[in-house]
């Protein structure tokens, strides 16, 4: 069945409010949840729904994303036919040198030749900046059964900063009657910005918006077409988080310490796949302590860790104390150092005896490869 659905992931999104966390990467390759990059969630949601062909639209700052994805084999996307395709702005860059995509329709127009060659009848459009485990097979079924032109996935729960998202008002039947964007007083259902529609309709919408110079999917499709097209909601009940700012990233990371949140993201039948790094187990030395923490493989912990999230290969030396922190891959907290309410990016070194402290609403962020 899922041979009928094609995936497109907008992987060029960068949020300036993520500051030092996105100097070396865009939002999609931001480490999240110990061993993952944010993109893993949407990519796995697609693969778990049986989608075998996925196009990933990239624009700038995507070296880290390419390193992570490789050939796509860790997601079973290294295929003879189809599989993972990275779509850089090859055509677009000539037309608008130095310009970033102004919106999703702009990005889709930039890869129109790829879209035209899609071999499936339907396409799911999604962002790569969402931590969510979506049942896309169910969403596709609803799309077909309901006869909708476009199915838009949304949630009643808080997603993040309202002003950066779309909100839907729907009639009791689930048909969208109004779409508000970038509003300070949101009403209705928050959009996950995941849409299913036919390839045919997608191509006609891309051409229409291109011809009328409308770069935005929200303005050009959702708002302009909600009267003409049957656009219906799919209300997703589970956990979803958009990572938009440093403090938001921190808060969303800490939510993972709640077993109920993990149960919604790490569904055994729909596992979140990521790059395999062949790490050994995490080693706890004599006298180590680890309480209420989510810890990936390959760490060596000889000090104390509390209420924290540790990525692969983190070292916490003897006498070091880490609490309420997010430590990314390869970071070392040396002997006797104390770190509280902090986000340490990859390969950060906190030297012996240093003491660093942020606050839960304003966590201290330490950039990649820095030594404190």
């Amino acid at each position, binding site marked *: 069945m899922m041979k009928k659905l094609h995936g497109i992931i907008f992987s060029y999104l960068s949020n300036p409010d993520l500051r030092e966390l996105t100097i070396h990467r865009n939002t999609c390759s931001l480490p999240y949840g110990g061993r993952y990059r944010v993109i893993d969630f949407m990519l796995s949601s697609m693969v778990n729904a049986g989608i075998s062909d996925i196009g990933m639209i990239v624009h700038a700052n995507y070296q880290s994303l390419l390193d992570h994805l490789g050939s796509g084999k860790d997601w079973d996307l290294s295929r003879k036919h189809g599989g993972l395709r990275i779509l850089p702005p090859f055509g677009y860059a000539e037309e608008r040198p130095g310009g970033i995509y102004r919106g999703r329709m702009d990005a889709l127009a930039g890869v129109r030749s790829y879209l035209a060659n899609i071999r499936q009848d339907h396409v799911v459009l999604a962002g790569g900046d969402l931590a969510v485990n979506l049942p896309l097979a169910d969403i596709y079924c609803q799309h077909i059964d309901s006869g909708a032109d476009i199915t838009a996935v949304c949630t009643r729960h808080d997603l993040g900063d309202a002003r950066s998202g779309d909100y839907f008002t729907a009639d009791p039947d689930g048909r969208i009657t109004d779409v508000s964007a970038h509003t300070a007083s949101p009403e209705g259902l928050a959009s996950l910005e995941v849409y299913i529609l036919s390839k045919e309709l997608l191509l006609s919408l891309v051409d229409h918006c291109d011809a009328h110079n409308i770069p935005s999917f929200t303005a050009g499709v959702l708002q302009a077409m909600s009267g003409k097209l049957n656009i219906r909601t799919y209300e997703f009940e589970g956990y979803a988080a958009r990572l938009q700012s440093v403090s938001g990233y921190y808060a969303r990371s800490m939510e993972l310490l709640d077993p109920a949140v993990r149960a919604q993201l790490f569904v055994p039948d729909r596992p979140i796949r990521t790059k395999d790094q062949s790490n050994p187990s995490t080693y706890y030395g004599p006298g180590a302590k680890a309480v*209420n923490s989510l810890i990936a*493989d390959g760490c060596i912990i000889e000090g104390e860790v509390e209420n924290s999230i540790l990525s692969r290969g983190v070292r916490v030396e003897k006498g070091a104390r880490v609490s309420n922190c997010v430590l990314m891959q390869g970071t070392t907290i040396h002997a006797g150092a104390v770190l509280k309410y902090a986000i340490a990016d990859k390969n950060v070194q906190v030297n012996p005896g240093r003491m660093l402290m942020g606050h839960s609403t304003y966590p201290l962020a330490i950039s990649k490869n820095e030594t404190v």
Partner: protein
Amino acid sequence: MKKECVAMLLAGGQGSRLHALTSHVAKPAVPFGGKYRIIDFPLSNCINSGIDTVGVLTQYRPLELNSYIGNGQPWDLDRSDGGVHILPPYMREGEKGTWYKGTANAIYQNLSFIEAYDPEYVLILSGDHVYKMDYADLLRRHKEAQAACTIAVLEVPMEEAPRFGIMNVDENDDIYEFEEKPKKPKSNLASMGIYIFTWSKLRDYLIADEADEKSSNDFGKNIIPAMLGAQEKMTVYRFRGYWKDVGTIDSLWEANMDMLSTDNGIDLYDPDWPIYARSPIRPPHFTGPAANVDHAMLTGGCEVYGTVENSVLFHSVIVEEGAVVRNSILMPGTVVKSGAVVEYAIIAENTVIGEGTRVGAVPEAGGELGIAVVAQNLKVGAGAVVAPKAMITRNVKGGAVK
């Protein structure tokens, strides 16, 4: 395409002394060290040594081993030229199919596999040992000595030598005598069961050995003595480092405990010599608000709410609040319920240790080690007591079990 060296990995071992753990799998597929199976060590050594063509000879309970090795991708052995190949015994036209009669016969039955790569050298490995070795260094020794056969040896304490196959060597480290488990050993150089042969030589001896009806078709018993008898140049490669045959429950337990020691001589965290494994997709492990994790190894999918000390946990192990696990090995998917105490034990895959149960015990002062073993997919009922050294292969309702 021609390969300089092809590795043949003998993975048919039944591991009968581990029986509660090997009733479903061959010994090389027994879980080890938190993330691995024993066969990951020789396979990873191959790829790290630059050997990209490996034949894995299976026979006993091959299903799980076959699916574990798959296309060899975790070890970078998914190749269009070479790579890893599973080699089971097979039928030939005009005769009945036979099992591999012995280690030498297993290689003999796969002559055509080896010939397809036209190698200069063939490396014979066993899937039963935990060690890191640079086979390129072994091959260098073999070439420098211009030997027909080079055997990797470990210097063992003299009092332990009678347990091993012992190589007696001259001043050039060339072998003049091989003694299997000698009562009065003349040297302490124990064979590690790792051989490198010049292929043209080995080929001749394998064919001659197969023609000899009285032969038991074994490397140690037949091929090596025959080559020595014919004055072939045979030498040793002295290995220094961690090596363990995990053939018994005690040695399997000890070797796992060795991984918890930082100076064990086999650094699993060494990025220059990684040990690869096929790992299931699991989220990071979680330590609960009241968890007490002290001197232990934990991996993906584990959730620890109770106490874990001096123990190795494989993926997806759950230790509930109030449960205590000490000096034990918990294989993938085991659950230790609240109030249970597991000490000096090995619990196999997906077994559930019920509430308030006691499995194993601390050896008495001066007493010998006694490891309790519970086989896979079992339920040990609430309140049961499983004695040290017990080997449980059926569900236990409750009460004392020896």
